[in-house]
């Protein structure tokens, strides 16, 4: 049986893994390769690296980091952040990333999803969707969650899959960093609406949150950052707990 995946997410700034809130008080956490290997060791099924550099120089450094990660890591990894064009997708895949996530650029130019899926295969195109609850529905936000769009989240996810996205990375931005638990309602609605795997993100705070997002939320994978970076839980601990509660995982 296909297992549920646990995915740590690492923010990379100028080639270094950082921690911080809203781009403020960035704290150096270490080297992306070493941290990635440590997570592989601790049972991560996959990793996500997000480039939060704003400069062209930062992006070049990120591409070099992707090459080094690909040379050492023996589990798959997705990269995203600032991916604007087909050339960006190509550069990151050629650097060795397994998948590339599209967010703002996909909303602004939805045909980018089709182009990327046609050229590189839908299995390596992840649509990252940042959603916020507004009056009973979920609205898609772009530019790191700062700018609202006219898209309703479930509709946008379906549209993205129709255009060729092979996975949805779904972040409930109202939950991000809260440790209050994943947005189960959002996750479930998207998981039931699309045919591709859904990665739930935003709000992981304890073991029960993970269990809940897989059982009630119907997620295929769950992503967390701070919880893992601070050493509160390891992917292995999460998976051991899930295993004891009957969720198929790789141990």
């Amino acid at each position, binding site marked *: *049986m*296909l*297992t549920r*995946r646990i995915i740590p997410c690492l923010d990379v700034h100028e080639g270094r893994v950082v921690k911080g809130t809203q781009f403020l008080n960035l704290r150096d956490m270490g080297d992306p390769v070493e941290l990635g290997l440590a997570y*592989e060791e601790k049972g991560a*099924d*996959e990793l996500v690296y997000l480039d939060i550099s704003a400069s062209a120089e930062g992006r070049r450094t990120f591409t070099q980091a992707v*090459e080094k990660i*690909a*040379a*050492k*890591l*023996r*589990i*798959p990894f997705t990269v995203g952040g600032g991916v604007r064009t087909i050339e960006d997708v190509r550069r990151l*895949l*050629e*650097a*060795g990333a*397994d998948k590339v996530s599209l967010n703002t650029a996909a909303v602004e130019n939805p045909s980018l999803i089709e182009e990327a899926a046609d050229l*590189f*295969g*839908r*299995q*390596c195109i992840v649509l990252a969707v940042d959603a916020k609850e507004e009056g009973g529905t979920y609205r898609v936000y772009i530019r790191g969650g700062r700018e609202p769009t006219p898209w309703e989240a479930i509709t946008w996810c379906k549209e993205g899959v129709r255009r060729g996205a*092979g*996975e949805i990375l779904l972040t409930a931005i109202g939950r991000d960093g809260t440790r209050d638990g994943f947005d189960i309602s959002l996750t479930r609605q998207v998981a039931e609406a699309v*045919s*591709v*795997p859904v990665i739930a993100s935003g709000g992981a705070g304890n073991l029960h949150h993970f269990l809940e997002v897989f059982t009630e939320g119907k997620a*295929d*994978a769950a992503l967390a950052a701070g919880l893992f970076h601070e050493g509160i839980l390891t992917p292995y601990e999460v998976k051991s707990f899930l295993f004891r509660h009957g969720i198929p995982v*790789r141990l």
Partner: protein
Amino acid sequence: MKVGLIAYRGGNVHSIRSALEELGAEVVYSDQIKELEKCAGIIFPGVGAAPVAVQDLKSRGLWEWLPTVQRPFLGICLGMQLLGLSSEEGPAPGLGIFPYEVKAFQRAPRLPHIGWNLVRLTQPDPLWEGLPPAFHAYFVHSYRAEVGSYTLAQTEYGEVFSAAVRKDFFWGVQFHPEKSSQQGMRILQNFLRVCLL
């Protein structure tokens, strides 16, 4: 020891290349038959769509050569699928080493089949040296080969399919050993050992 890694369009070969190098192999990444024939074994990677891959292999003059390879040969993912008779993806022709027709999943809960799934070994093989009878490996695909007498391992995703196959010197794995952590590395190491024989 030299291992040939077939260069053609559509293969993300970074990971497989670095994995083989980490295991001590000298990787010859080439589409030149002359260069590939100097290698003790051949790795046939594959990511992307079958028709594009077939067309590209033909234009490089590799298509007719592939079935004639007389040394350990490992097809990975699409590389394994192309060893069959044909693929429904496209559709595209196969190399005809194995008698399977590659078809889309019919009863899969979600597609693509992405993630770690259980590989159950069904026949002993040098490739499985040191591995448990069942282990998790990383898959990314939407088409699969049916189970037959050539099957070395099987996996279930709505239906049971071939996770690994073998005929003589030809091996194929549907999963990505280069992405399957330590157990995947063990499989590659075992393949390199076979190449040394």
